[in-house]
């Protein structure tokens, strides 16, 4: 019934999703949800926006170059909403750049809505949410130009980044911006860690929405993520032991390959 080779994946994913739903349900009923550890990159968002406000320079935001189907882009929207609200509250200019044309109307609406929520609809500048190009390096070149011309005091790069990640990080450093970056693309994380002031590594970008909003329901879902990781660690340890002591009788590998 289940497609070949996906049996274990299906059941593991089902149990994982059930755990998240249970925790969401607990949070909705007002039951206590464990606290999450501090994420310096997310705590620094207010510091970065405050710096831009004091210096009178804009905040630069990029949701990455992934399309709407990419979970990293969806995670970026939660952060963008928070950053846009804070910028609207403190009258700080926010420049949002987009590579994917489908993402552009969403980011435009998020920023517009954020200004409306704090009652400053008239201060929303539609020219600050920009679509540049579907081409990766054309987008990168355009963002470099924006950074050199506008001199942002803060650069927030959350989403799916590929080869252009270091270009953004280095140019941000050249113009003197405080940089908060996050991506789940493992091949780009080292560049962000080396070049940015704060880096959200992998799953931390998915925690941003819950962490910044402090919504108990979203925090409950985060805890489910941690439970999934704990199960993965147990499976890894058991699998490593079995592969070492009984490589030919590794029943765990056999089950997981089904």
């Amino acid at each position, binding site marked *: 019934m289940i497609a070949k080779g996906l049996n274990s994946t299906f059941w593991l994913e089902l149990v994982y999703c059930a755990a998240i739903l249970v925790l969401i349900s607990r949070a909705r009923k007002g039951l206590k949800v464990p606290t999450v550890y501090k994420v310096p990159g997310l705590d620094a968002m207010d510091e970065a926006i405050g710096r831009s406000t004091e210096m009178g320079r804009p905040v630069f935001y990029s949701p990455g170059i992934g399309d709407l189907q990419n979970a990293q882009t969806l995670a970026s929207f939660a952060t963008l909403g928070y950053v846009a609200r804070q910028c609207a509250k403190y009258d700080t200019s926010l420049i949002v750049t987009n590579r994917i044309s489908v993402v*552009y109307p969403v980011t435009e609406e998020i920023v517009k809505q954020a200004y409306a929520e704090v009652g400053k609809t008239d201060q929303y500048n539609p020219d600050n949410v920009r679509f540049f190009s*579907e081409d990766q390096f*054309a987008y990168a070149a355009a963002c470099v130009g924006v950074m050199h011309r506008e001199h942002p005091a803060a650069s927030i790069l959350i989403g799916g980044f590929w*080869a252009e990640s270091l*270009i953004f990080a280095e140019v941000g450093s050249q113009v003197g911006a405080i940089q908060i970056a996050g991506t789940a693309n493992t091949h780009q994380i080292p560049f962000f860690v080396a070049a940015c002031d704060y880096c959200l590594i992998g799953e931390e970008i998915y925690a941003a*929405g819950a962490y910044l909003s402090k919504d108990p329901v979203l925090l409950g879902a985060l805890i489910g*993520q941690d439970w999934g990781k704990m199960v993965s660690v147990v499976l890894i340890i058991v699998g490593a032991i079995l592969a070492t002591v009984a490589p030919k009788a590794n029943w765990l590998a056999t089950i997981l390959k089904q």
Partner: protein
Amino acid sequence: MRKEGPVAFGLICGLVVIIVTYFSAPALAKVKGELDQWYLIATAFAVAVGLVNLAQIHMRKINQKKEGWGYSIVLMVGMVGFLLFGMTVSSAGDPKFQWMYNTTVVPMNATMYSILVFYIASAAYRSFRIKTGEAAVLLIAAVIVMLGRVTIGEMISAMIPKWTSWIMNVPNTAGMRGVTIGATLGGISQALRVLIGIERGHLGGVE
């Protein structure tokens, strides 16, 4: 309805895709095929929206002769030129269209990609400073790996390429796999939150 409608539609579409992925459901597979086509059509319309945004911003810059308006003219000429010429040819594989693309876009992309070399050097100069223990580990590992990747490393010591392989195959791979597992679980959680509607950032900030 403004809040619930898009969430319900997203949930139904998401469930269709998930069911088709895990189970054999020919009827739903056809629905998924249709949804994929709808996405492509919506993307095409979104490109038009993006083009309008670009044109608005740069035409305003040209009209008001703001700083850098000359570059806006170059952009508009290039964008409109490609668009009009593209409409006259039969497909993107047309030799003339390909020539235009290969002589303009490809070299410009290569230029931007090659700038990375200099940015890697400047990032290395900034980050490879021994301020903390972790920075020292980063510097030592980076030096070993960089030397191990070029012939001079083997000339200095036959052990350097072996240390390089060990660093890349053991701690680096382990770390990256750990991040990948965490990111994958985070992605699944994110997708679930979007499907059941408790995370609505993608709906344009609708609360």
